[in-house]
């Protein structure tokens, strides 16, 4: 998007990535307060270490690397009992009246919260942010094959949790079902 320019300060680009950083942090942690702390730490680290960013490379991937490292190191250090919070969160979601498209969305949120952080992270990068397997692997500091297997396992587990088993998935490929499916998707946008 932006051509390498010696005069330009890459730090001016940080603000453009804020919405994606925060949305990723919220989707990963399911907790706004933790997410905002992560984003704040990441901004400060990125600002003070901007000399380590190679101009012309993917700044979003670079920022996400800092973001996720911040999350995993604070998770290790503080040993936050995120799972307890999750339990409450998951219950409150499950208690919401389930009707129309909200049923599926709530089911999905509950299922997504049950995944391991590493799986949810890989799936978000690939499925929601459109990262390539290579970009996601670099961001997470793991092999491409690891990202592939994490996303595959995550998809499989989500499908099971949401009752989208393979047989149903097969049946849903028939034209009638697909047209209903896409019609409901279009109307929800």
């Amino acid at each position, binding site marked *: 998007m932006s051509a390498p320019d010696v005069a330009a*300060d890459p*730090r001016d680009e*940080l*603000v453009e990535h*804020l*919405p*994606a950083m*925060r*949305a*990723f942090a*919220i*989707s990963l942690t399911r907790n706004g307060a933790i997410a*905002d702390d992560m*984003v*704040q730490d990441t*901004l*400060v680290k990125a*600002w003070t270490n901007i000399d380590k960013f190679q101009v012309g490379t993917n700044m979003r991937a670079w920022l996400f690397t800092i973001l996720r490292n911040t999350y995993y190191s604070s998770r290790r250090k503080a040993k936050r009992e995120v799972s307890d919070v999750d339990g409450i969160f998951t219950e409150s979601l499950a208690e919401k009246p389930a009707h129309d498209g909200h049923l*599926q*969305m709530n089911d*999905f*949120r509950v299922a*997504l919260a049950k995944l391991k952080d590493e799986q949810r992270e890989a*799936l*978000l990068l690939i*499925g*929601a*942010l459109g990262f390539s397997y290579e970009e996601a692997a670099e961001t997470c500091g793991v092999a491409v094959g690891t990202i592939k297997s994490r996303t595959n396992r995550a*998809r499989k587990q*989500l*499908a099971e949790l*949401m009752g*989208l088993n*393979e047989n*149903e*998935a097969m049946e*849903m*490929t028939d034209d009638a*079902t*697909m047209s209903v*499916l*896409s019609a409901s*998707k*279009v109307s929800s*946008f």
Partner: protein
Amino acid sequence: MTVQKQNKSGDGVIDENLRRVYEEAVEEGIPDRFKSLLEQLKQQDNDQGRSQ
């Protein structure tokens, strides 16, 4: 709209929901504290007379 990578319907449903979860988070917007933090960092650098 164009749905990418919808070769399997199960994956299609999952990706659709993933994008929605993410988009909802994007739509929450950015708290002002982040923009003021960036301004603060910039100000600090200027005060230190750091040349770029």
